[in-house]
């Protein structure tokens, strides 16, 4: 549904997005996670045919973004970073305007359907100026959906919302995937990405990783084992003498040991510790949070962000 290859965008001599290659399948919510300035908005703008890429290619909903921009625009919905409305016009009128521009066959009915779905029907005749930020964001979701796009771009849909509105919006996004829509969700909120996204692309100008949230965690943390000891002593760490142990250090009530392959190595490690006189209370895989993984990925080398 979304297919990008080596997509690059430069502004003058600053590179905003560098050779981004990614795929989103039909019905998938793909997270685009990265700090401010990572190039998320620029990526979305390129994929929605608002900005031309400097190089690279992409197709969205089956249309090439360079060759078939009007078709791409017609088949994607976008929730922009700061979605504005004609604040003097009513909710209903705002939505109808966009529905008509997208050539929706029965605009009034479509508008009604989405105003109801997002709980805004009662307020349809009010000017948008009267809406709270949370409700405005819901209206923006309605606008992104009113022409039934197959592909949706949501650029930081919950940023700046109060927790309750943010939860509503997240819940709604969750429902979208079950409608076979493909969603590219930009966010710098890890919990949100982990909760909603089938896969997460970590972006910081370049693509740093692209995988399922649990895979990302496993791959990054994988080989660490936490051993709880009743008698923690530093010689346990230094005297292990096992070939597969990469690092071992004493933490406050035990050891943190990095091994080559936990599946294979943990039994031998435990046996060795018992030989050394350790009284083991617990053995656990050292699961890291997505946040640790993310910070390690993004907190990288050049400090460009």
């Amino acid at each position: 549904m979304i297919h990008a290859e080596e997509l690059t965008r430069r502004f003058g001599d600053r590179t905003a997005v560098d050779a981004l290659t990614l795929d989103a399948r039909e019905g998938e919510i793909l997270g685009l996670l990265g700090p401010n300035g990572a190039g998320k908005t620029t990526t979305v703008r390129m994929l929605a045919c608002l900005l031309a890429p400097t190089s690279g290619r992409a197709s969205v909903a089956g249309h090439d973004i360079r060759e078939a921009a009007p078709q791409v625009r017609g088949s994607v919905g976008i929730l922009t970073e700061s979605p504005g409305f004609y604040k003097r016009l009513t909710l209903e009128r705002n939505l109808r305007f966009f529905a008509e521009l997208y050539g929706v066959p029965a605009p009034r009915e479509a508008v009604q359907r989405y105003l109801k779905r997002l709980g805004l029907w009662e307020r349809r005749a009010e000017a948008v100026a009267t809406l709270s930020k949370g409700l405005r964001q819901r209206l923006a979701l309605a606008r992104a959906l009113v022409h039934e796009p197959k592909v949706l771009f949501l650029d930081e849909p919950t940023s700046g919302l109060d927790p309750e509105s943010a939860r509503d919006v997240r819940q709604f996004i969750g429902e979208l995937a079950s409608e076979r829509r493909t969603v590219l969700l930009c966010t710098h909120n890890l919990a949100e990405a982990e909760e909603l996204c089938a896969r997460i692309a970590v972006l910081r100008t370049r693509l740093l990783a692209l995988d399922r949230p649990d895979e990302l965690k496993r791959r990054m943390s994988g080989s660490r084992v936490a051993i709880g000891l009743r008698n923690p002593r530093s010689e346990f760490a230094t005297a292990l003498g096992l070939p597969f142990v990469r690092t071992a250090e004493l933490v406050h009530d035990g050891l943190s040991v990095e091994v080559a392959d936990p599946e294979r190595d943990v039994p031998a490690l435990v046996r060795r510790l018992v030989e050394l006189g350790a009284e083991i209370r617990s053995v656990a895989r050292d699961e890291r949070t997505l946040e640790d993984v993310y910070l390690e990925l993004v907190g990288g080398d050049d400090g460009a962000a």
Partner: protein
Amino acid sequence: MGRLRVLVAKEWEELRKIKMVLYGALFLPLLMGGLAGFMVWQGQGLPPEAQAALFNTALMYFLILPVMIPVTLAVYSIVGEKEQGTLEPLLATPLTDWEIFVGKALVAVLPAIGLTWAVFGLFLAAAHIILDGIPPGVLTLPWLLSIFVLSPLLAVFGVLVSMLISSRTSDPRAAYQFSGLAVVPTLIPLIVYSVQLTAVNFLLVILEGGILVLLDGLFLYLAVKLFRREEILTRWK
């Protein structure tokens, strides 16, 4: 419904909701029309040549109107989108760059021409009653050309200038003020006319028409270049 019609309908509804823009666009034609009528009213009982001179001066108001009326409309239709943050959602729709530009221009040009002609019609009717008929030698071909050819060209000129300026600033007041400069070209023939009073000759009208066509063409070229998605998104302030 065509996308262009959809855009123009929205613009129009929005403009009607803004009292300042609406009254601003109506105030000027009424004021100018009133002034022109007053001038003719002063000619009651004067000899026909004096009446004709007054009448000619009055007619000049109808060259300022088409430039002045659309300024507020054009400025708002651009600055309003910027202020409200609606440009990006608008650009994400299948509207073409050209449709956006033409829609925004039309919503200012059409009322300007319509109002100018409407007030002009009212003025003629009033003059007819006040003076018991239009003085001879007034509504000559050059004058009619001025009203029916120069006015639309002037309206287009006013709109293009306003749109170019509005794309460069998000402060409506600054945009209104600078766009007011669009009236300058109309002052030149105005000065010529008022120095020579009845000498509204064919040559002058053709000359000004030619200059306006050139200026309109130049500004149209610039405006179309400015009204490209990428440009709007990355360069407009």
